[in-house]
């Protein structure tokens, strides 16, 4: 199965199309792909602990997705605590994962 990177830079609560992102990630995981979801820029907003959209990250993580949030983006938005299922990360980590190679990178 493939190794996929999905980067989300949009605020999931602002864009209607972004709500399909968790469904995309879930389906890719269910098909057996190794999926990393990296939240950056406004994408980290939904990962704030207590945010309504944050409830889906926990379940999404249970499907096997690796969900990461960029620390610079979080700090710029005053996000100190992440929703369950979301791990703190940074662009060094992202660069390391890209260096290892993905079969496809989807950047939203």
């Amino acid at each position, binding site marked *: *199965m*493939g*190794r996929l990177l999905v980067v989300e*830079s*949009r605020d999931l609560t602002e*864009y209607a199309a972004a709500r399909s992102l968790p469904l995309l990630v879930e389906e890719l995981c269910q098909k057996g792909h*190794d999926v990393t979801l990296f939240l*950056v*820029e*406004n994408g980290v907003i939904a990962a704030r602990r207590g945010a309504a959209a944050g409830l889906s990250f926990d379940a999404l993580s249970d499907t096997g997705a690796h969900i990461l949030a960029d620390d*610079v983006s979080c700090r710029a938005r005053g996000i100190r605590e992440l929703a369950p299922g979301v791990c703190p990360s940074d*662009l*060094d980590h*992202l*660069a*390391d994962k*890209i*260096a*290892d*190679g*993905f079969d496809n*990178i989807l*950047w*939203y």
Partner: protein
Amino acid sequence: MHNEDPVHKDRKRVRRVAIVLSTGSYQREAPTTVLRLAEKLLERGIEVNVWAFEEAVTLTNREQIEHNEPPSLKPVLGESHAPVGRFIDQLLRAGLHGAKMDWVTCILCAQERGVEKHQMGGAIVGTLGDLWKFVGGADQVIAIPAYR
């Protein structure tokens, strides 16, 4: 943690990444994120090829002027507000002694925006043929979409 299944065991380390960017400086945060990521990739010895089109052709406009910050904000933001072109210049220069970054600006988009003759040193005015070669020669391709 690497997967050890047969699909991944032969995966080779990435040597070259192509980035396709269409966003200008003040539309979205994407240019900043791209440059942050490019810096990290270059630090790892990975070559980065950027193909800039649409509003992204203004990122390498050499006429960008650095402004002083208002006195009330200087204690917080520093003396001046550097344009993004300075960061790009630094990354291009870093490539002299390490993994290199090539930055190509779409000629058509640059002409339409009146910045073809104003590209900073190190930025190359090119065509879709360059994009084709960047994509074909890359181990990874990252295309950053433009949003309203």
